[in-house]
């Protein structure tokens, strides 16, 4: 039965059935034909998986992100980043990374981050004679920070499934996100030196101050989100809805670039992108039910423990597994299937669940860069107008840097536990 179930899923994946339907349909076949589960249970499982207050953060963060994009906020962030780091060798690459980091503090999805910064920066880099492959690689790898620096939709999902504090996960993501951002900038610096990409502008304090003032309202957003969660005033969902309101107010009344007639399109777009994630969650929960029924999590945990009882080796193996999963499976489904499987194992090893959450999200963020399911690379390549093969080759040095960051996060708990430790007891 087990083999048949997985074979069915694999066939569905190969024939390009959408992932959500593939998981749901293979689970439905197992439930209806082999376990005689009534149809109502299927419906109840799907309904219950979406009926969750923490998950309300998903559509709200999507909505806040696209409101900021339409409201002229991403352009101001890019201007500020440009004044701050444009004077370094390979200036535009650094601007891209820094702008993505700021944007990551606003949006919770890597795809949104890549698209927002990429549409502005990739054409600019091509104009200045940067190699399109390099431009696309910088944008994609910087965009993946979108899920590491809070807010982060994958962290919301991890928090819901593993019942860890979403606020603490967000705080843990700050250290890891800064680490990834600065190491990507270092990599971009060395590549730019070698290829002879020059600084964009002279360092000017006046320009920094001026662009900071213009971007001030946009830059205020991350502080509202993170500040609200740190001080324990808001839950993640509440901060998400506040972020949405804030984006509406800034877009309409401060920058005045948001138009009423844009709203239906923004809302529909946000509703569809969040539904795609939520529908995957609904189907993955049915899938997860079958896995649990078959006691597959216990089986796999058993294999792991039989393999070795050395925590360091085990953590390395888990990372390798997660990288592999991230390459082939989309983020939300990977979380729903593997969090219930791995978290008991992790607590058995004495690893902090917050640290592991950040680690897992970082792993899957790397997976967003690697084809076939590398959503960030797909987006940045299509903006740069190059093939996936070319984009994938250019991304290799950045991928290497991120894997090093991953090992740091895995073996230096300080990076992820220091900031949450400051604000949360116990």
């Amino acid at each position: 039965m087990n083999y048949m179930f997985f074979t069915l899923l694999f066939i569905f994946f190969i024939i390009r059935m959408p992932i959500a339907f593939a998981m749901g349909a293979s689970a439905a076949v197992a439930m209806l034909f082999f376990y005689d589960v009534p149809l109502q249970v299927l419906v109840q499982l799907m309904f219950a998986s979406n009926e969750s207050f923490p998950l309300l953060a998903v559509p709200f963060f999507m909505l806040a992100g696209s409101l900021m994009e339409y409201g002229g906020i991403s352009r101001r962030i890019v201007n500020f980043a440009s004044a701050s780091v444009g004077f370094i060798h390979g200036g535009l690459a650094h601007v891209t990374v820094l702008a993505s980091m700021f944007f990551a503090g606003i949006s919770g999805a890597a795809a949104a981050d890549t698209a927002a910064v990429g549409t502005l920066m990739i054409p600019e880099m091509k104009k200045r004679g940067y190699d399109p492959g390099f431009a696309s690689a910088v944008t994609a790898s910087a965009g993946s920070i979108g899920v590491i620096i809070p807010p982060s939709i994958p962290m919301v999902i991890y928090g819901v499934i593993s019942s860890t504090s979403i606020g603490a996960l967000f705080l843990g993501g700050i250290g890891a996100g800064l680490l990834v951002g600065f190491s990507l900038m270092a990599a971009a610096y060395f590549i730019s030196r070698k290829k002879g990409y020059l600084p964009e502008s002279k360092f000017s304090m006046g320009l920094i101050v001026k662009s900071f003032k213009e971007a001030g309202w946009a830059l205020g957003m991350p502080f509202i989100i993170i500040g609200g969660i740190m001080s324990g005033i808001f839950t993640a969902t509440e901060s998400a809805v506040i972020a949405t309101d804030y984006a509406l107010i800034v877009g309409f009344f401060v920058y005045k670039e948001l138009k009423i007639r844009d709203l239906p399109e923004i809302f529909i777009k946000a509703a569809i992108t969040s539904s795609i994630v939520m529908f995957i969650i609904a189907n993955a929960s049915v899938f997860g039910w079958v896995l649990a029924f078959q006691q597959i999590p216990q089986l796999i945990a058993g294999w792991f423990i039989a393999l070795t009882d050395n925590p360091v080796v085990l953590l390395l193996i888990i990372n390798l597994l997660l990288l592999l999963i991230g390459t082939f499976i989309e983020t939300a489904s990977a979380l729903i299937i593997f969090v219930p499987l791995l978290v008991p194992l992790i607590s058995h090893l004495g690893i902090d669940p917050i640290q592991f959450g950040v680690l897992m999200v970082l792993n899957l963020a790397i997976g967003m860069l690697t084809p076939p399911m590398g959503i960030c690379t797909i987006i940045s390549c299509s903006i740069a107008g190059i093939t996936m093969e070319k984009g994938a080759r250019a991304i290799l040095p950045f991928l290497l840097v991120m894997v090093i960051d991953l090992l740091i996060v895995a073996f230096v708990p300080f990076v992820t536990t220091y900031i949450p430790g400051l604000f949360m007891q116990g």
Partner: protein
Amino acid sequence: MLIFILSVMVVVTSAGVFWRYGLNSALSWSEELGCYLLVWVSFLGAALATSRGSHIGIALVFDRLPLKIQFWIMVIVDMIIIFFMSSIFAGGIKILPSIHARTATTLPIPMSIPYLVMPFSAGVIIFYILVRLITGFKKRNDQ
């Protein structure tokens, strides 16, 4: 309709936060209502995403197959999705009478109202896919 529900969701949750912190008296029903609205938005949005073909799939192998085979594979995929959605539709209808007797925790509505979205969205997905299949076959015959 999707726009309307999402807007109501923003208003209701904002109101929940405002009442709790601004007026210091929590609204008991805003969280539950927010959750049901989320379910509605999610499944209706999933139906709309189906009609626009924006659900994510793995195209690695598929894209390398000849067009003729691609067409028949697409037909098979659509048939499987129709089978799956029909079971959701049937289950969703069957569950309504028993769930109608239950009332939501903080809202004065029977649980059948939030649950209605399940058969409804499944029905819409089946409809979209049938339309897609029929237009696909028509196009093929025209060529």
